[in-house]
């Protein structure tokens, strides 16, 4: 692996982005998307090559590109580190990105911001590559914030829409709350490891784990727990874990292709990737791992419930994303990093597939997103239908599809874990299976089956989307089925090698691996287990409620008004944030300004001084009489006083 190969890989999308963004008007729409797609396709091809070098030839790479800054003995550098974890992420990111690029040609072809859109998604690909390829915390933070920037730009892509520009500000600020923790965590790493370079920091981990810090006088905290929790707060922002999840559902205000790419498949998994990358640190703190586990479990369970009552097709999938991110986080907390990252990969394919499928439906429905106004689309849109079925089955963990393998290994791992909170986490992920199946197939049945509830707009019948839309769906459906079969090497084998460190006492996957006897055995075993039957009953319940007795949901809603209201208000997070944080900050600002600056500093002190000076000078004016003998007299007196002072 050479530096030039990696540079070309990372910079190709950036070049595409610059062409589409700065020269979009000059080169036109077609060359804008060509430049962007060529850039990302190059990146994808090279990523596959890199994966081959890593996985087959056993190569790794870790070198500096240039020195960013030097201070004393500290050197901050820009560099790449490529190992199995990175290579896998690179392939996932560039593949999904390429699919989304192609899809966008169809989805956005009438939009005024066509070139701008391509510029943004290519810039995103570049930023995400920098994030996953970083070999140090400074560059990680750069990529981290750069993807946040692009997310901000893309959620607010339709900048005339009030909801969109509200959502993008909210997304950026909530992410900044996470980054606040993340940056403090990085500062802690620097203080206790003396470096920001991954390899150097990881080698210091054992000695760091013995140190304590007294944040509050008299209370010694483990440095490692503090640092890991701070870093994880960053992950909570980016990967939308409760309570920093509030931005993700609103991010659906952006165009659908980016919901697929950024807000489902890749950027939101940055937190999962980061914690996995930091496994050499997290392994030293069971406190932090428990914290991660519990937060993940809460997210997995409670965000799933919210998916049950949403009627906007994209929001249902968004809540499903939140819940699935919770699953990944649970895996991290249980030290089953490989299972978490494996779920990250399978989820990237099937969730991108579901979102792009939703986009295809939205095109057919003339930008109607309410699933109550759809139905019976199966016969009009066969490709979308079948690919959406594959995506949904993968999501609920149907045996043999990718999601089954990743989700089951997470559930088994949590079952085997015995760190604090694992009992609750196990309950959450098991219950979550039923909920996932219920909301996924509620969506599926309401959209594709049953009566046609849409307005046909006269003669226009819904029809299948063009090839630029449907081909990416097919290309995403393939990995959604097959990548699960990599479970052997990726979860139970040594694919990740030294990229993931697990201490023996936490090694739940080794425990699960003892029961693993090949893919077929795993499938057969899975079909006898509780999660499978929960998933099936979820599908059956959805069928019964929305196809057989469609009047029932309304009755249930009537019966459980209070519960419905809690869910409809999303547990009150938004109201609370809006009133307490947003409103409170503005009020504090007003108070400090009007009272502190204007009344006290300016009113009492500055202008008060001016008034006093005015009064004094009125009095002094009498002294300045203009008569020479007055001045001469004053001088003599002054001289006398001075002389007395010095002589005596």
């Amino acid at each position, binding site marked *: 692996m050479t530096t030039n190969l990696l540079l070309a890989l990372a910079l190709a999308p950036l070049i595409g982005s610059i062409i589409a963004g700065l020269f979009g008007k000059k080169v036109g729409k077609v060359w804008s998307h060509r430049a962007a797609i060529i850039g990302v396709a190059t990146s994808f091809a090279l990523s596959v090559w890199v994966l081959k070098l890593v996985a087959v030839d056993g190569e790794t790479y870790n070198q500096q590109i240039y020195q960013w*800054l030097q201070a004393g003995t500290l050197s901050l550098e820009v560099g790449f580190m490529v190992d199995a974890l990175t290579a896998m992420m690179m392939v996932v990111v560039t593949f999904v990105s390429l699919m989304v690029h192609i899809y966008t040609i169809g989805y956005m072809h009438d939009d005024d911001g066509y070139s701008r859109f391509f510029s943004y998604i290519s810039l995103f690909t570049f930023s995400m590559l920098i994030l996953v390829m970083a070999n140090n915390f400074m560059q990680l*933070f*750069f990529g981290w914030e*750069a993807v946040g920037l692009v997310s901000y730009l893309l959620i607010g892509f339709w900048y*005339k829409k009030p909801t969109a520009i509200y959502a993008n500000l909210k997304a950026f*600020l909530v992410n900044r709350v996470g*980054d606040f923790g993340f940056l*403090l965590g990085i500062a802690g790493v620097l203080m206790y490891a003396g470096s920001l370079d991954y390899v150097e920091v990881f080698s210091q981990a054992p000695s760091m784990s013995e140190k304590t810090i007294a944040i509050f006088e008299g209370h010694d905290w483990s440095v490692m727990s503090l640092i890991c929790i701070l870093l994880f707060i960053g992950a909570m922002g980016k990967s939308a874990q409760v309570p920093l999840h509030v931005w993700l559902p609103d991010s659906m205000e952006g165009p659908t292709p980016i919901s697929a790419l950024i807000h489902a498949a890749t950027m939101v998994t940055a937190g999962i990737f980061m914690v996995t990358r930091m496994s050499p640190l997290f392994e030293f703190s069971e406190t932090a791992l428990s914290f991660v586990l519990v937060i993940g479990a809460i997210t997995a369970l409670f965000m799933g419930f919210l998916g049950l009552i949403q009627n906007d097709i994209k929001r249902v999938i968004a809540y499903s994303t939140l819940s699935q991110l919770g699953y990944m986080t649970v895996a991290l907390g249980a030290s089953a990093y490989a299972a978490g990252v494996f779920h990250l990969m399978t989820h990237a394919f099937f969730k991108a597939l579901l979102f792009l499928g939703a986009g295809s439906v939205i095109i057919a429905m003339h930008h109607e997103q309410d699933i109550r106004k759809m139905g019976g689309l199966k016969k009009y849109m066969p490709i979308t239908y079948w690919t959406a079925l594959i995506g949904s089955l993968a999501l609920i963990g149907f045996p043999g599809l990718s999601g089954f393998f990743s989700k089951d290994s997470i559930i088994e791992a949590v079952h085997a874990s015995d760190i604090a909170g694992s009992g609750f986490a196990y309950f959450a992920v098991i219950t979550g299976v039923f909920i996932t199946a219920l909301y996924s197939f509620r969506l599926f049945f309401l959209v594709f089956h049953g009566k046609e509830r849409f307005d046909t707009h006269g003669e226009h019948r819904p029809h299948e989307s063009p090839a630029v839309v449907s081909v990416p769906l097919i290309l995403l459906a393939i990995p959604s089925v097959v990548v699960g079969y990599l479970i052997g090497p990726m979860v139970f084998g040594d694919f990740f090698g030294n990229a993931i460190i697990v201490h023996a006492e936490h090694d739940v996957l080794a425990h699960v691996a003892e029961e693993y006897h090949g893919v077929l055995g795993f499938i057969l075993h899975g079909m006898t287990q509780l999660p499978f039957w929960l998933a099936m009953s979820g599908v059956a319940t959805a069928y019964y409620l929305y196809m057989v007795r469609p009047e029932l949901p309304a009755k249930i809603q009537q019966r459980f008004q209070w519960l419905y209201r809690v869910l409809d208000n999303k547990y009150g997070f938004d109201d609370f944030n809006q009133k307490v944080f947003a409103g409170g900050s503005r009020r504090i600002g007003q108070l400090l*300004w009007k009272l502190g600056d204007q009344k006290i500093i300016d009113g009492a002190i500055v202008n008060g001084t001016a008034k006093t000076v005015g009064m004094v000078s009125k009095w002094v004016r009498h002294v300045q009489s203009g008569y020479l003998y007055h001045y001469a007299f004053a001088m003599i007196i002054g001289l006398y006083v001075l002389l007395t002072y010095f002589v005596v």
Partner: protein
Amino acid sequence: MFTDLPLLSLLIWLPVLGGIVVLINGDNNPWARPLSLLISIVTLVLSIGLYVGFDNATHQMQFAEQASWISTFNINYALGIDGFSMPLIILTSFSTVIVVVAGWEVIKDRVSQYMAAFLIMEGLMIAVFASLDAILFYVFFEAMLIPLFLVIGIWGGPNRVYATIKFFLYTLFGSVFLLLALLYLHHVSGSFSILDFHEVSLTLQEQTYLFLAFLIAFAVKVPMWPVHTWLPDAHVEAPTGGSVILAAITLKIGGYGLIRFALPITPDASMALDWLVISLSLIAVVYIGFVALAQSDLKKLIAYSSIAHMGFVTLGLFIVFRIFANTTDISGAVLAVEGAMVQMISHGFIAAAMFLSVGVLYDRMHTREISAYGGVINTMPIFGGFAVFFAMANAGLPGTSGFVGEFMVILAAFQANFWFAFLAATTLILGAAYTLWMVKRVMFGEIANDDVAQLTDLNRREFWMLASLAIIVLAIGLWPAPLTEVMHSSVEHLLSQVSQSKI
């Protein structure tokens, strides 16, 4: 080639004399603008000669010049620069070019006087950074305010007289203490050389009084809470060029003063009173961050944002004592001081860009009220791109210069005390909140009214003015090493000075 010339004198007197020539030629002279631009560009090119000829390996004063000025009192015309002053001089000469370009079409009254004021101010400000004699420093320190008062007082807004007087009283209040301190140091050392002041032994009591005098003088300039209230008023009334110079350079003289005087001359008092400066700095970051959120005037918002950003400068300079107490390695303290310096330089570019952007809007709409705008990006898409970029830089996005200084200071602050870093890092949230909320209200949304609908996008002059700033902001963000390299020796020298007791 550059080392043979008396480069510093050229940098000081070329713009001053050039400004006088422009002034004498009068307002009807069509050459006033091109001549001013030429002078400012030549000055910029010469100042880059400082960077090219600079020796990074030494902390000694370079490009030194010495001549007797008032021999009776041993006052000398002594010039020289080190890693602290050199970047600030280049910032000054660059900002002046931008200001001349910014005033090109906008200033219609008394053009030559306007241009001359900025050229003369440029020379005087460079002289402040280059002076090695205390009296010379003091003279330029006071003199550079005169053109600034004139700029605000003549080309300013409706409430300019109040703003000018407030500004004047504040700074006068500070300078009195500075003069007393300098005279006392002369009394002790028998010299007016600033470098001699660095060597003088002083008791803790002497140091404390001197330190407080320096702090008052320079805190007003920075400005630190609670002596900051002149800045929003001055900015609001100043013309765009005045705001640019005020934000980009004048504030930096405060930070520079603390580096040149307070820390090396009174290190023991600086250490004993570091809690005071650190507290005021953190108040600036948090308190002012909230205040900025409450602003409805574009310029006031950016002015408050400047105060919050300058809080990082004073924080970075004064946490070094606690870092020394906690770690054996010098790196943390270097990070803190260089972070403070980078923050000054970066803020010079970003704040200038922000005020120029407000100027672009003000020239078209003649209002600074945020509520008068909305959906500007619809009619000014290119300007919108710049505005979002500079807003992100102001919010400290990595990849822009705004990130570098804050990042360095926060990393270093953690090594002093967790809570310092905690409070400083709130800027990540507050800075983004006030900046991006402003962008949302001004730039995004449907076209708010007919005035916004009539807006025309940037002309070529405005485009290159903002583009050149954007390129620099991006360049420093992506590769700050060339900027920090020139500071290493001087920073390490300063740190050795502050870690040796003078008692």
